[in-house]
């Protein structure tokens, strides 16, 4: 069987991506705070954290979709340090929402992305068949994705991410909403990518899954990297007997709540403030009473 992923650029364990003191602010919210990380070729890294921990922000910084407010992200390509944009040629991404066009068939979705990578349709089709075979998806390639279940959409998105033979695979909650069999197939595919020497960045809420799939786990909490190492190292660091206890110990402080994320324009902000009631109904009121007040 052909490898599912390329490992063309450099030796295993050579640095692929370095984040130096990276911070990211949205208005006055600090989504990520002074992150220092090095991802090596061949790593299968799990990014674990709760909602709003900063996982997606970190992933987007790694892809170059966000620019750091402070610090820098360096891609170590075949020809030395290169702009982060260059990494996109070697990157396969499965976003949390899968990002499929519902009026296109699964194959058309995949073909769109391989074309953007400059791959001929014939070559892309061959690779797609190989991947679809591994995920038991061959019969669905010609169907519009509109009627796909969550699992089918996830599989199509994974094939799309791998069809241009990237050497880095980035998965954001890849098994979220999948049934047991589909989740196992996805994990098996990640295993194949790892065996082919590819680099995988695996973002998940589920610690057990990260432990099962990844060699290295990065725990993010409130925009900070709280721990970075193998499951054994994390347990040793926290003196806990299992990874779940280690995670709880590392993220013991309350998760932050974004109550004023600055995504509105000035006019929209003024308008919202004018129209938003300043006081909520009293705790003692029943819903009926509240309705009567209205």
């Amino acid at each position, binding site marked *: 069987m052909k490898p599912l992923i390329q490992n063309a650029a450099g030796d295993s364990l050579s640095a692929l991506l370095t984040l130096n003191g990276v911070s990211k602010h949205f208005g006055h919210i600090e989504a990520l705070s002074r992150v220092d990380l090095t991802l090596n070729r061949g790593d299968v890294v799990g990014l674990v954290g709760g909602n709003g921990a900063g996982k997606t922000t970190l992933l*987007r910084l790694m892809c170059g*979709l966000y620019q750091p407010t402070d610090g820098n992200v360096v891609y170590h390509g075949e020809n030395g340090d290169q702009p982060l944009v260059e990494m996109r040629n070697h990157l396969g*991404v499965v976003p*949390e929402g*899968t990002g499929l066009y519902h009026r*296109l068939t699964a194959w058309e979705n995949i073909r769109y992305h391989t*074309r953007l*990578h*400059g791959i001929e349709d014939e070559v892309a089709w061959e690779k797609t068949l190989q991947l679809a075979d591994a995920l038991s998806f061959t019969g669905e390639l010609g169907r519009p994705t509109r009627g796909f279940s969550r699992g089918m959409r996830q599989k199509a998105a994974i094939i799309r991410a791998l069809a241009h033979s990237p050497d880095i695979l980035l998965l954001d909650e890849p098994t979220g909403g999948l049934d047991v069999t589909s989740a196992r197939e996805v994990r098996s595919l990640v295993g194949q990518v790892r065996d082919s020497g590819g680099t995988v960045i695996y973002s998940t809420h589920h610690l057990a899954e990260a432990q099962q799939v990844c060699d290295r786990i990065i725990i993010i909490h409130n925009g900070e990297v709280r721990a970075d190492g193998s499951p054994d190292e994390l347990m040793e660091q926290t003196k806990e007997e299992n990874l779940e206890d280690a995670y709880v110990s590392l993220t013991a402080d309350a998760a932050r709540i974004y109550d004023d994320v600055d995504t509105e324009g000035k006019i929209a902000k003024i308008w919202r403030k004018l129209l938003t009631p300043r006081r909520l109904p009293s705790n003692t009121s029943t819903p009926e009473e509240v309705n009567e007040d209205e």
Partner: protein
Amino acid sequence: MSKLKGRMFRVRAVATKELIDFVRDWRTLIAVILIPLIIFPLLFIALPLLLESQAEERSEFELRIVVQSESEVTDFMAFLDGDNANITWEELPAGIANLSDPGPDYSRVREHGVNAILRLEGGVEDNSTIWNYSILRDSTDEMANEATKRIVTALDTWEELLIEATLEENDLNPNTTLNPIRWGGDIDASDVATKGEQAGFALSLFIPLIVATWTATSAMQPSIDMTAGERERGTMEALLCAPISRFELLLGKWIAVALISATGVLAQVCALFFAIGFIASSSDMFGVPELSLSAILLMLMSILLFAIMVVAFQLALAVRSRSTKEAGSTLGPMIIAIIFPAMFAQFINLEGVEGYWFLIPVVNVLLALREILTNTIILEHIILWAGSSLIYALLAAYYASRQFNREDLVDSIN
């Protein structure tokens, strides 16, 4: 693959995907392509045919008309067409305040017992016999309206006859007395403009308006779908992770929207010319516009520059929105901002028009189209509208490229 070839390949991939996606959405296809294709044939061919057939149908209505007067006015009754009508005479009712007071006839007119009642009352004024009249009818009833129309036609004919009789009694020739000033010869032969030029002039009063409005409206939906729609559905993130620059993405989407919009406008203009051709073939009142090759090329250039500006601006505004609802609310008023100057431009006198009018966005293209349709080619004006349109198009494209570089483009409302 060379760098340029690679860029072209990616732009083409985006444009192709967007077009496939668009064609699969049959509702948008109907709204943007089919409706402009049928709207003018419907308006200019089907609607007159329908009106004609309805008028014929109305003329066959079986009507009940009552004529009320002090005594039967046989002179007049002769003009009232008895075909498909039951005409009866009655004496004027007593106790009515004036002829227009329905009095005892109110209920039978209201309940359509009769379709119309003509009341006639003779009198003398300045030694001449005059007739006062009124028609009692329900103006919301089609039969009553048809009855009223037939009565008025009969009254007009009777009035003409009375005037002629009065003039002859006084030894006056009705023809020379009533028409002392007349057109000599064939009125059409005196117009040195060809039928085609006349048609071009008439069309210059509304083709530019159609082009401007339809370019803006037909580009709106695809612009929203390809930008805010992508953000809303969460497809933008995966796309932006691909090795395509934001400018290439903008260009690919712009080409797709411009093609869709141009197809819509072209379909509408072709349908308009087809409808005009149909009317011209069935009547000698209207011709097909005659345009020189240079006029056609200038027309295409002006539409293209306008489309670049409008589509780029719509894409830029739509991509700022995180949902299609937000984008719709932003772009909706923009259509008004195009329609209003477009309407004003229709009333600007082209004769001796000041140069600055050709510098105002939207107005410049509208005036250019009006001039071109009348085959008027003035170099100074062309330089002004082409130059200013190019600058506006480039500014809109620059603004759009800045919006496509926004970091929050990846954020979805979901």
